[in-house]
Each structure stands twice: as structure tokens, then as C-alpha cells.
């Protein structure tokens, strides 16, 4: 079978592209090296949190950023694509296997959610299970930890949140015993336990006894992998108060939920996901890549394809690498990487939290997401670059990583569908479907 599209990478950008294409009728193969980067991410969709100053209205700020910084991925995409992609994702999660679990929020406004160290962090779209943590509402919060859990420290969170809100919010902390577990109370073990019958009910009974009636209860993000809506509802009902999740260090439970959701949607639409695979070469002719050489299951396979979506991510995902001679490569197709300081030039600043010269390195692309070579020429006509592999952004500092990944993945699907007239008609209706 010759897939219409091979997507390389199983994170946010690759799955957004893959689901969009498959649901529009394209034949899609997603090649993923591992479990994808979503399990590392907090599970929120951060469109733009900081552009120098903190961003309150991401779409507006993205439009301004696109004007100001033509090398930024958002300049290639534009605010409308971002808005469209955000609505699309919300609709897909709402139709997904975890429904009625859904995402709340809007691309117009950032919420401020507590991080696991107690910083109010701007996010646009967040799981419903986090929404009650929005610090813009003020009020009181009780951070509830589980004794012995090393990846969640309620007292520190509470101290920092109180200071961060200038005392406007009163945030307290408490610790309770974790549910009975077979081993130490780690994130995954707690999440699995809360998915088992009776465990959430018992926790809800316990939560009813902590804190005051007017406090939002903030728990680590462990409210099950498979039934977050049900567990969350059970806890809120039992506690008689709003409950919210705070994302923890990897592995991230909300990130896994999003990964499971998108993977299920991909498969439902007939797409395939092959994990444990990585691209080791390709066959190209002129300005087209005709096939990818892929290491999978200890052997090598050739996948012929009409389109390639390169969604391999940045350095942290292995999509880009810097070698010992200080040269940077794109690892799957050997594309040129822009924004790399010359050998013997500073790559990093000595101060950790400063901007680093290498920080924005990545593949340069044009408005159709086609990769550009070092001379600024299109390298391949049928390759689209999405997500963290794109240069020009500092995703963690900007809190823009998921937004760029989602919007560029979504845009890549639209561009391919647009070029393939035959499938694009059916796709257009789905893609443009508004959400409630």
C-alpha cells in the first residue's frame, strides 16, 4: 500500500497532521520513534504565554508577533490558522475516546494556571480538569498533595502562589495519605489506581474532610488516564468544591491522555501509527521525495509516499542534533538548519535563564511549510515541516510549543488536502466544522 502521506513523528504536530489528513480521507502512516513528546508536556495547549511581557490575549499577540518577527513560525502560519487549529483540537478531543472529557478556554484569552512550583503560567486551552485552577478568578485554594509523592510539593506551591498573586489569593497546602498502592506514590501509579473502581470514591470522601468550603482543591494531575472526566466529577461531588489538576514532571498524565486521544482518532479514521520506527534515509528525485527508508522492528522497510510531513521535533525530541564538531543537522532528511552560530562562536550564554544564541535554531520554511535550504530555496516540494523542527521560536520560554505544533500540523494537513483536490472537498467540511 502506498500511503498518501507519511508523517514522521508522533508528538502534537505529527498527530495533528495525521488525524486531520486521515479524517479527510487520506491514507496516513505516522512513524514514531517512541511514545512521542506529548507524555512530556503538561497537556495544556499554550499558544503564546510570553512575548517579552506576559501575554493575556494570545491571538492578538500572535498577530503582532507575526508582524514583528517574520522568522517566527507564527509568521508563517498567521493568527487565523492558530485559531482554526485550536477550535479543531477542542472538537476532536470532545469527539474522542475520553469524552465527555474536553478542553476548555479560548485562543482569545490566556488563563493563568499554577505550575508544580507555584508559578501562574499562561495557557489558552486546557483540560477541563485544570480549569478551576485559573488564578485570574482570585479566591482561595488548597493545594492537596499525597504523602511521599516526590514530584509534587504542595507547601512550596502554596508559598509561591501566595507571593505571586501579591497576596490577592490565599493559598494553603496540606498532605493526605495516598490511596493504597503497590509501591511508592508516583504519578503513573496514582493515575492507574484512580482509574480503578472505588478508589476515586474513597479519595472523594477524604477530600470532603480537608480545607474550607470556599477553597478550590488543587491536586497533582493524576486523575486517571482513561476516565478523567468521571474521576474529576466524583471528586468534585464528594468534596463539594471545585477540583483542579496541576501538571507534574514527566511522565505527564494529561499529556498521555492527549496522546491516547489523538492516536485513537487516527486509528478510527483508518490511519496507522508505527512506533519504534525511525527514518534512516530516503529516495528523492529532483524536488520530490519518493520513499523513506525506515528502521522498524529490527529491520529496514521502504515506504513510498506522495507527501512527507516532517514532525520530528527539535533537539529535545531528537529531530535536530549538534555534533561534537559543533555542526547541527536535521536528523531524518538531512535538511539544512538555520540559526546555528558558526563554530567558535558562542552557542549558549553562561547564564541559564538568558537567551541562548542556539536557542532558535531549526529548519527554515516558507509559508507553505516547505523546507528551505541554506540559500533560502525550497528544497523539496512534497515535504512539509511542522512543530519543533521549525526554527525561529523559543517554545519553552514563549510557552508556544504546543501552539506552534498544533497549528503547523493542522496547517500541513490543510495544505496537503488543498493540493490533493480529490480528498479536499470532504476534508473541508470536517476541518471547517465549528465547535460549540
Amino acid at each position, binding site marked *: 500500500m502506498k500511503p498518501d502521506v507519511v508523517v514522521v513523528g508522533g508528538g502534537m504536530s505529527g498527530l495533528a497532521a495525521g488525524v486531520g489528513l486521515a479524517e479527510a480521507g487520506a491514507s496516513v502512516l505516522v512513524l514514531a520513534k517512541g511514545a512521542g513528546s506529548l507524555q*512530556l*508536556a*503538561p497537556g495544556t495547549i499554550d499558544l503564546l*504565554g*510570553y512575548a517579552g511581557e*506576559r501575554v493575556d490575549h494570545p491571538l492578538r499577540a500572535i498577530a503582532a508577533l507575526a508582524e514583528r518577527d517574520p522568522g517566527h513560525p507564527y509568521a508563517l502560519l498567521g493568527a487565523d490558522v492558530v485559531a482554526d487549529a485550536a477550535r479543531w483540537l477542542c472538537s476532536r478531543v470532545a469527539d474522542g475516546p475520553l469524552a465527555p472529557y474536553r478542553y476548555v478556554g479560548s485562543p482569545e484569552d490566556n488563563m493563568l494556571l499554577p*505550575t*508544580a*512550583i*507555584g*508559578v*501562574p*503560567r499562561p495557557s489558552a486551552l486546557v483540560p477541563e480538569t485544570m480549569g478551576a485552577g485559573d488564578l485570574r478568578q482570585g479566591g482561595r485554594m488548597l493545594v492537596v498533595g499525597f504523602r*511521599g509523592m*516526590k*514530584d*509534587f*510539593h504542595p*507547601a*512550596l506551591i502554596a*508559598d*509561591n502562589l*501566595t*507571593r*505571586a498573586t501579591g497576596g490577592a489569593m490565599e493559598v494553603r497546602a496540606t498532605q493526605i495519605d495516598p490511596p493504597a498502592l503497590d509501591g*511508592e506514590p508516583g504519578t503513573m501509579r496514582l493515575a492507574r489506581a484512580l482509574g480503578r473502581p472505588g478508589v476515586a470514591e474513597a479519595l472523594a470522601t477524604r477530600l470532603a474532610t480537608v480545607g474550607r468550603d470556599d477553597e478550590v482543591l488543587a491536586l497533582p494531575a493524576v486523575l486517571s488516564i482513561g476516565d478523567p472526566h468521571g474521576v474529576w466529577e466524583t471528586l468534585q461531588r464528594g468534596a463539594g468544591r471545585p477540583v483542579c489538576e496541576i*501538571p507534574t*514532571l*514527566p511522565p*505527564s498524565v494529561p499529556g498521555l491522555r492527549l496522546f491516547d486521544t489523538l492516536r485513537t482518532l487516527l486509528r478510527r479514521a483508518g490511519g496507522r501509527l508505527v512506533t519504534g520506527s525511525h527514518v534512516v534515509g530516503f529516495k528523492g528525485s529532483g524536488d520530490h521525495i519518493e520513499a523513506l527508508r525506515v528502521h522498524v522492528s529490527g529491520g529496514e522497510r521502504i515506504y513510498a509516499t506522495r507527501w512527507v510531513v516532517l514532525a520530528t521535533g*527539535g*533537539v*529535545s525530541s*531528537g529531530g535536530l*542534533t*549538534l*555534533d*561534537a564538531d*559543533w555542526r547541527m543537522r536535521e536528523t531524518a532528511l538531512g535538511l539544512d538548519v538555520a540559526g546555528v552560530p558558526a563554530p*567558535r562562536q558562542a*552557542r*549558549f*550564554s*553562561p*547564564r*541559564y*535563564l538568558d537567551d541562548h544564541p542556539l536557542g532558535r535554531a531549526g529548519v527554515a520554511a516558507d509559508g507553505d511549510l516547505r523546507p528551505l535550504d541554506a540559500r533560502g530555496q525550497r528544497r523539496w516540494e512534497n515535504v512539509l515541516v511542522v512543530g519543533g523542527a521549525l526554527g525561529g521560536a523559543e*517554545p*519553552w*520560554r514563549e*510557552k508556544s*510549543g504546543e501552539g506552534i505544533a498544533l497549528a503547523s500540523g493542522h496547517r500541513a494537513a490543510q495544505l496537503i488536502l488543498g493540493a490533493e483536490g480529490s480528498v479536499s472537498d470532504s476534508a473541508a467540511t470536517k476541518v471547517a466544522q465549528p465547535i460549540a
Partner: protein
Amino acid sequence: MSPIEADLLVIGGGATGAGVAWDASLRGYRTVLVDRSDLADGTSGRFHGLLHSGGRYVVKDPRAATECIKENLILRQVAAATIEDTGGLFVSTPADDLSYGDEFLQGCADTGVPVEEIATDEVLRREPRVNPAIRRAFAVPDGSIDAWKLLNALASGITEHGGRVLTYHKVIALHRDGDAVTGATLRDTRTDEEMEVTAAFTINASGAWAGQISAMAGIEGVTIVPGRGIMIAMNHRLVNTVVNRCTMPADGDILVPIRTVSVIGTTDVEADDPDDLTVAQAEVDQMLDAGDQLVPGFRNARALRVWAGVRPLFRDARAQGSDRDISRAHTLLDHRERDGVQRFITITGGKLTTFRLMAQEAVDAMCLALGEDRPCRTREQPLPGSESGEYYTVGTRLRARESDGSDPLVCECEMIPRTRLEAAMRDKGTVNLDDIRRALRLGMGPCQGGFCTYRATGILHEVGHLDGATADAALLGFLQERWKGTWPILHGDQLRQSRLDDWIYQGLLDVEHLPDWTAA
């Protein structure tokens, strides 16, 4: 605060100073050891971890070689728990002069360093990563020694014998009464409180800073040339034996397996300031290339961290000695003879391997000056933790872990369980995670603090009853401290790891917007 009264004030919490304080405590002197920072935060904690057999010096500096092998054998008895008995090899790579091997053998015979020439295929059987083109090889009793463990053991020994250890106490003035040094004013660098120490005798063991300290006593001309060298820790034990190049001492001539890493050293650049620990890109490239001579493919192996240390090389402005005398041997300056200043000695130079001998000579000189006969006991008295005489082995922590797996690990890389971390935080009473690193190796593994920095901060906040601002400062300080040693070598998998850490700290936790990080 009332002044501390002591028989002996020792300035400098490196191996030499702690060794002096340990030696003096064993001889019954009430001793106070002070350092402006933590123990082993200077040169002692910034070397490659080699316990010298002496082989490195048998040709160039025979006296140093003999001292090394004697001390090597003593430390194996009294400080066994801090030592890994790796053994050492001297190998002639294709780039090395083969005839040096004969000089080397002769030098070993002359200086008493045990040596055995072994077949190169035997070397490659033992150490498969070593350059297969080596032409000769010699085995010597090198080892590796954990300086932080050593200093912690010395500190325990000092306090067990009635001494005091004051870290983060900087000497801001030395006091003289006539021609005698009588004590010092200290400033607690964490609280800015000042404190007086009166001491019958003062020993300056401040290494590369010895000139600055002796100047406070009005003594001129103690010129320490800071010889700065960089070292790079590789993520794996590329070798399990210390591997030296069989050549005259040169840059990048040694690879030391220590704990879970291997360390290549070193360069030698004359610095103006002992506090200048700059790592130059050219030196990094030079070390990586040198490593390739010993272990082909080294340059592309995963480098974990780089740091610089300064050798204290003494050049006496008063004596017109040859440069030979500023080599690796140590120097004892009796300021009574040299400068007419009583009750004050400087001991400097030397190597970590010979710290015990240096301490003995310094305390012997003090006894002589005081007219007392109290014999040295450090040759026989094991350090706390080394009573059984068992060497450290690389599986020690794993063995402890396997015997009690119920205690959750806070730092998986270095296998540090939570109760151990909490105990160290209580014992040290510190708000600085780098102190915990030196005590337990927190954050020294492959992820360089990626996970444990957050966890340890949360635990420190709880255990130490800290406020949020202090805890945040601990976290940001440790992130910066970890970054300091990684950014100059970041590439390949370690860069990827580092970006994952950014994802956690900047992306997920958003530490750059902690309430007052700019103040931290």
C-alpha cells in the same frame, strides 16, 4: 558573639587544610577549620579524582613520585572507603615516543613505584575501548579517590575529636600581637555576621589563595601561580582502569574512571586569579581530541560536564629557585624563619594524593615551634567510614539500594534515597543544594539535575521549614550551578538531555517567572 578559643586555626577547607585539622585533632589540639565556602569547593573538589601511584612523576619529578607511592599505600589503609582500586595503566599511543617506556621503567625502579609491563593484547582484553594501536603498556597502582567523600570523612573525624568545622566563614582579617599571629576575624558569608577566633597557632592551608591569606598577616612575596586546568567528565566509564599516556606529563594525558563517569584531564594555563575558572572553547576541543588518542571515538562520546580547577604552584619571590621547584611538590613555609612572623605556617602546593603528608609536616612544624612532642597518628588511624578497610566499588550504592528498595529515590542517576537526602539536609543545615551535591552527588548524573532539582527543592522547603523565596533561590542557584558546567560542552545526547531539562524548568514549571527570581 563570644570569640572562639582554639589551639589551632586552620584556614582552607580543602584536603590539605582538613588533613591538617584532622592530624592536629588526633594529637589533641583544639582545632578550628574555616573555609570561605563549602569543604572541597576549591581545588580539591575540582580535580580528576586520581589517586596517584607516582607513575606520572617518575621521570620528571622523582621526589614527588616517591611521596605519591608512599601516601598511596597509606591512604589505601586509612581512607579505603573513599578510594576505588581501579589500578592504572601507562600506554604508549602511536603519538608517543616509544623510548619513554624505558625511562619510565627505570624511573619506577628508582622511585619505588611498583610497575609491571604487560602485553598490549592483555590491555585490550581488560580495556576494550583503549586505542588498539598502543605499542607498550605498564600497570601501576593508580586508583581513584572521591574528594567530597574524603573531606566529609575528615570533617567527621575532626568534629568527633573535638574540633570545629566552620564552612562559609571567610577570613577577613588576621590578627597580630607583636610578631605573632593570634587569630582571625571571620565573616559568615551567609549571614554577614562577624566572629572572632583566637588561636595559639594558625596554619594557612588555603592553596591557591595562600598568598592572599599570608598577606593579611603582613607577609609579602608568597606568590602562588594559579595553574588552571580543565577536566571533562564523560557520561560513562569508558575505561575501568586509570589510563595514562606513557609520555612526559602533558595536556590531556589521563582518563580516570571515578564513580559512574570517567574524567579526562587536563590542561595547564597560567591564570591571574585563582577564582577565574573560565573554560575556553579551545581547551574543550583540545581535551576531546586528546581523549581520542586514548579511546578512539572519544570526541563523539557523551560529555557530561566540564570544570576548571587551579593548581596552587608556589613560586617563592624571595628565593631564586629553579622552575623545577615550582613543580608538583609541596611547600612548607615557616614564617618565623622566613619573615620573622611567629605562630604562623603556610603549607601549599602538592597534590591531593599527598595531602596527609603535607598535613603531617605542617603539624610537625607547629609542634616544633611550640616545643611539644606529640607524634602524628594519621598513618594508622582510619578515617570515619573506612574502619573496615574496604574499598569503594562502583556497585556500592546499587547494593545499598537493593537491600532497601522501599525508600523512594529522589535522584535516580546517583541513586539517592529520600531519607538519606533529608538526613543530609538536616545535618548540613544548608539552604544551598550545591552543598548537598558535594555531600551526596545530587544532580551529578546524566540528567544533571533535571528531575532531582525540583524534588530536592520541595523536600528542602519542607525539611528546612524554608520560605518560598529561599527555596526558589536554592532551585535557581542549583540550576545555574549545573548549567555552568554543561554549556561549554553541550552537544549530542547531552544537549538533548539539557533541552529536556529546559522543557521541565522553563516549559512546565516556568521557573523564570518565579515571584522574585531576579533577586535570587
